């Protein structure tokens, strides 16, 4: 009878973070038709699409209006100062890629007539207040992709 082989195998110790698991979207014009959102963000502008046909402001940015199905949409600025509607702080149970950030604050920010979710930087949960002003902030990954956050720090005079 032949001897049964027993071979040890090695798996790679680390693998590159798969692109879908880093949470940040693919932002350039080769990958998305809303790439202007991200190029505007690089210029420190938070924008979204508004329907030229029916006037509806759409968030997240779209290529077709969900109210009238027009694809005639324009980019509008939402401003750079928002108001905190609700907030919490992630203390346990963060996903991969966010674990090193714990604890971090998350909020719903009223801005430009919308209520959007966002990371709230420069803040401790205990110091935040419903209704307080927060300032737009842009974060950039080392590969050049960008996203918005808000900063809770008071302006230094």
């Amino acid at each position, binding site marked *: 009878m032949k001897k049964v082989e027993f071979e040890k195998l090695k798996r790679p110790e680390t693998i590159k973070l798969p692109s879908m*698991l880093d*949470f*940040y*979207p693919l932002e350039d014009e080769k990958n998305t038709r809303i790439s202007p959102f991200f190029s505007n963000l690089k210029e420190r502008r938070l924008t979204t699409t508004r329907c030229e046909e029916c006037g509806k402001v759409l*968030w*997240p940015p779209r290529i077709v209006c969900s109210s009238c199905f027009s694809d005639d949409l324009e980019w509008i600025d939402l401003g750079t100062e928002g108001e905190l*509607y*609700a*907030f*919490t*702080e*992630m*203390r*346990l*149970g*963060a*996903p*991969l*890629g*966010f*674990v090193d*950030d714990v604890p*971090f604050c*998350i*909020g*719903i920010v009223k801005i430009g007539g*919308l*209520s*959007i*979710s*966002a*990371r709230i930087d420069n803040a401790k*949960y205990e110091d935040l207040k*419903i209704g307080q002003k927060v300032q737009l902030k842009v974060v950039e990954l080392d590969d050049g992709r960008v*996203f918005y*956050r808000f900063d809770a720090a008071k302006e230094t005079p």
Partner: protein
Amino acid sequence: MRRVAIVGGGATRCGKREATWRELVQEAGKAMFEDVDNISPKEVDALLVGAAQPERFVFQVHVAPMVAEHLGITPRKVIATTELMCASGQAAIRYAWACIASGMADMAVAFGVEKMYMPDMAEAQTNMTCVLDREWDGINGLSAPPFFAMTAQRHMYEYGTTKEQMALVSVKNHHYSTMNPIAQFQKEVPVESVFKSPMIAPPLNLFDCSGITDGAAGVVLVPADRAKEYTDTPMYIIGSGQANIGNAINNLASITEWIPLKLAVEETLKTAKITLKEIDIAELHDCFTISEIMEYEAFGWAKKGEGGKFIENGEPYIGGTIAANPRGGLLGCGHPLGATAILQTLDILHQFRGDVPKGRSVSDAEIAVTHNLSGAANVHSILAYSRTEK
């Protein structure tokens, strides 16, 4: 449309199980088929499998045929997986119901399964972050706990709801789950324990949140006029409601008022031809303590903003205004996503049969509802059941 009955079912013990996804399926399948008289798996011509994220938790898609293979089922009419996140199991029941009611199938199995414990729990948390809009909400670290934490914060801010009132929901549901042998949590949890449990996302402590859970369950559906061939104690589906408004945070109808739930409740009462007062048992989706408080309000047992007082006064206990979650709820039993709705339904069947321990038995119960929410509470799903054919 034909009337539809549930003639039996079975489930696994829920919790952190030393068992794989497919082993959970086999355990629950065996229990299900052994619960129904005169049944052969070959009779099942429709199989719907509620599974929220098998592709993330166990890296497997096309799971309905896998369930069929392990249970000896060879569907000839309908087979599919149903995904509606936390309401995936209710989606399976709804489709199975529609298959029988329409005449498309004569025997359907609605199954639910989730294996959520992973060697690396940060990976499990990652999975839960694609439940909301991943690119616009998830990217901010927004998974269920922070979303419901902000819901709780607003409810406290607008209506004066307290952390203690929220904790009382956890106390009640853990009390009932001590009398449920398949529940994940078997110990009483006093208010102080809720307060002392680790803070997840303020104002929510760990015991304000339902658990990460492994579990599976299945139920068998047939036309009502054939139910007695399979059991002396069938129960009947008498109505339902389901509504959705928005998905991403910005597009919700409201964060402190669940309008889709109010719509689903209205539709349920209308289609089941019942009043709120006629409901004896409500299995509510208490994924977080604040959820159950908002559900007292949306169903109409408590006035808007008074859900906290409702639990403080003991109204959702057996013998009160409504027996809410006498199974032990998601807080006490755990929340194996795809299996949860099936587990709720199965417990209603056991209640109607008089087959649950005395301390959590609702005597003479005739009408019950099961409720699930999913996503950012933007979808609400309800089924209504009757012990007798109406």
